[in-house]
């Protein structure tokens, strides 16, 4: 089973990914296309920016009263017949879920998309205790069969070509070798997953929104597997982070009008299911999870990213994500938002992520809840530098640069030396292995004179 035990070196992972130039361009174009679909959908919504504004404010308001709203949610959910559990961290979450299943003798669980359960590494925990876990989203099932993590929070298998999926299905589902037509593969998966859904003792779903005033859960999906998983077996487990709360039903349309359009360019997902308690004769268990979120709430530089509704728009627009692939981030959530969440949880482990960005700001402009993603990435860089988690070479180079830039005389001398020496040095010296800039680029041509000297020489110019 895959593990993120090693320190994530994004530059190296990225370089490996894009060394296959054809594949990297294919991935880049495929994900860019989703950004374009988002643009087309947003252009049909005249109040798009007003919606983003409202969404940001609802989240800010909710985060300022989160405990109160969670209590209200719990009260109303209990009144509807649901059971509510609380987990401080991933270990408690996993133990609670396992406990619910074990108590009822359930050995077969079907799961639909939940980034939270990925974050808590629920699958390996349950499998080690004798429970078969089947991820029923097509994309999640593909990566589950391939024994690798998802590379995108909305399109888990976006990094996989259809021929590779065909081969995977030939091995695991018995499709004919060489079949790669998406419709045929999807049909094969439909039958395979339907059998799993019918045989399951319990279904687990994530939660997109938990409505405090109703005690209801809202789950947004396209395929139908989440709804089947929540209604065929008698036991439904729903896992949610504390930040999934929205105060009132009338807040929902603000998010629902933004979510699918931002994620895939659809006006809404096929199913937007509202669960008001368990089905007759069934059980609904809601597991509310903290796992670092309350701590993040306390950090004013990073709390805005708790507003994230997991749409994936930021990673679709990110020029770095598209060219390095989700796996290079080494975290369940990649891209810009992942580059904030991951180092917030484990700073040393993910210290390269906030630097895996040119800070272009495109992510912030597509974020439906107006998280200032690129500014938060910059804040995280400061935080990591304070903790001395920036590589020594970089720290020394920047300290030297600050020294030279801070001493006018030295700065002018350095410029003069560069202008005199660089053009005279042999090319192999200038473009040696030490020159990272020069690996694929020429240095800018050294000017003959500094700007100050040119300015002084102008008629009437003065320094």
């Amino acid at each position, binding site marked *: 089973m895959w593990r993120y035990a090693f320190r994530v070196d994004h530059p190296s992972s990225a370089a490996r990914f894009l060394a296959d130039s054809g594949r990297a361009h294919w991935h880049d174009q495929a994900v860019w296309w989703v950004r374009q679909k988002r643009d087309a959908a947003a252009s049909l919504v005249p109040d798009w920016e007003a919606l983003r504004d409202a969404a940001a404010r609802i989240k800010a308001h909710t985060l300022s009263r989160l405990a109160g709203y969670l209590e209200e949610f719990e009260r109303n959910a209990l009144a509807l017949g649901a059971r509510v559990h609380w987990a401080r961290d991933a270990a408690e979450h996993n133990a609670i879920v396992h406990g619910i299943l074990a108590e009822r003798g359930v050995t077969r669980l079907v799961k639909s998309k939940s980034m939270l359960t990925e974050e808590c590494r629920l699958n390996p925990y349950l499998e080690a205790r004798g429970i078969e876990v089947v991820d029923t989203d097509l994309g999640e099932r593909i990566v589950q069969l391939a024994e690798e993590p998802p590379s995108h929070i909305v399109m888990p298998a976006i990094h996989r070509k259809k021929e590779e999926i065909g081969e995977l299905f030939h091995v695991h589902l018995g499709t004919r070798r060489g079949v790669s037509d998406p419709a045929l593969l999807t049909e094969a998966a439909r039958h395979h997953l339907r059998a799993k859904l019918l045989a399951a003792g319990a279904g687990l779903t994530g939660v997109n929104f938990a409505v405090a005033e109703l005690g209801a859960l809202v789950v947004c999906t396209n395929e139908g597997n989440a709804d089947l998983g929540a209604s065929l077996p008698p036991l439904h487990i729903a896992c949610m982070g504390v930040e999934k709360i929205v105060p009132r039903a009338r807040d929902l349309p603000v998010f629902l009008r933004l979510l699918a359009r931002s994620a895939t360019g659809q006006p809404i997902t096929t199913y937007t299911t509202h669960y008001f308690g368990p089905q007759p004769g069934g059980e609904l268990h809601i597991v509310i999870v903290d796992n670092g979120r309350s701590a993040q709430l306390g950090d004013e530089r990073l709390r805005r990213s708790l507003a994230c509704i997991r749409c994936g728009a930021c990673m679709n627009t990110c020029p770095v994500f598209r060219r390095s692939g989700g796996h290079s981030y080494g975290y369940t959530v990649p891209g810009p938002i992942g580059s904030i969440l991951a180092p917030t949880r484990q700073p040393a482990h993910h210290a390269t992520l906030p630097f895996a960005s040119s800070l272009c700001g495109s992510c912030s402009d597509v974020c439906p809840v107006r998280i200032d993603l690129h500014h938060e990435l910059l804040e995280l860089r400061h935080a990591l530098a304070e903790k001395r988690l920036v590589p020594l070479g970089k720290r020394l180079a920047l300290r030297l640069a600050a020294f030279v830039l801070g001493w006018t005389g030295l700065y002018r001398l350095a410029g003069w030396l560069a202008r005199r020496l660089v053009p005279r040095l042999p090319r192999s010296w200038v473009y040696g292995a030490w020159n990272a800039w020069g690996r*694929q680029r020429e240095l800018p041509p050294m000017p003959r004179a500094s700007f100050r000297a040119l300015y002084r020489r102008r008629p009437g110019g003065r320094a």
Partner: protein
Amino acid sequence: MVRHHYRDLGLSGPRLDAVAGATRELCEFLVDVLGVTRASGAFPHRVGLHQSCHGLRELRLGSGTERRVPGFNKVRSLLSGLEGISLVELARPDECCGFGGTFAVAEEAVSCMMGRDRLEDHERAGAEIVTAVDMSCLMHLDGLIRRDKRPLRVMHVAEILANAQH
């Protein structure tokens, strides 16, 4: 930078306020302060406008392709006033060039792929000259152009505007 980020560096006070309040990027100065929305002069060339990220998304020199706001672009409108100029149509009008700062060196592989992709776009669109308001974008793109020997050259918007006067 001065207007948006100097305070983050711990600087403050009336002198910073005065300087920050008076600092403008060239095109926004021409358009917002001098009221020149379209430049005059001649520049009969095919020009690709690279929308530098800081200028576009921090200084809001243009509306950008992400947001649903009334379209505007100060740099483009200035340049489009030049006689004979042909501003080419890019496939991705405001994707980042990949310079970023230390990113250009720390994530060198991604940085160069991003830069090359921009240059491919400009070449395919038929540009002779790539222009931008940000010198660092141009330095990075120029470095790639000269290494790859692409049939392009870079000029800062100021150079084009000055050149057009002669």
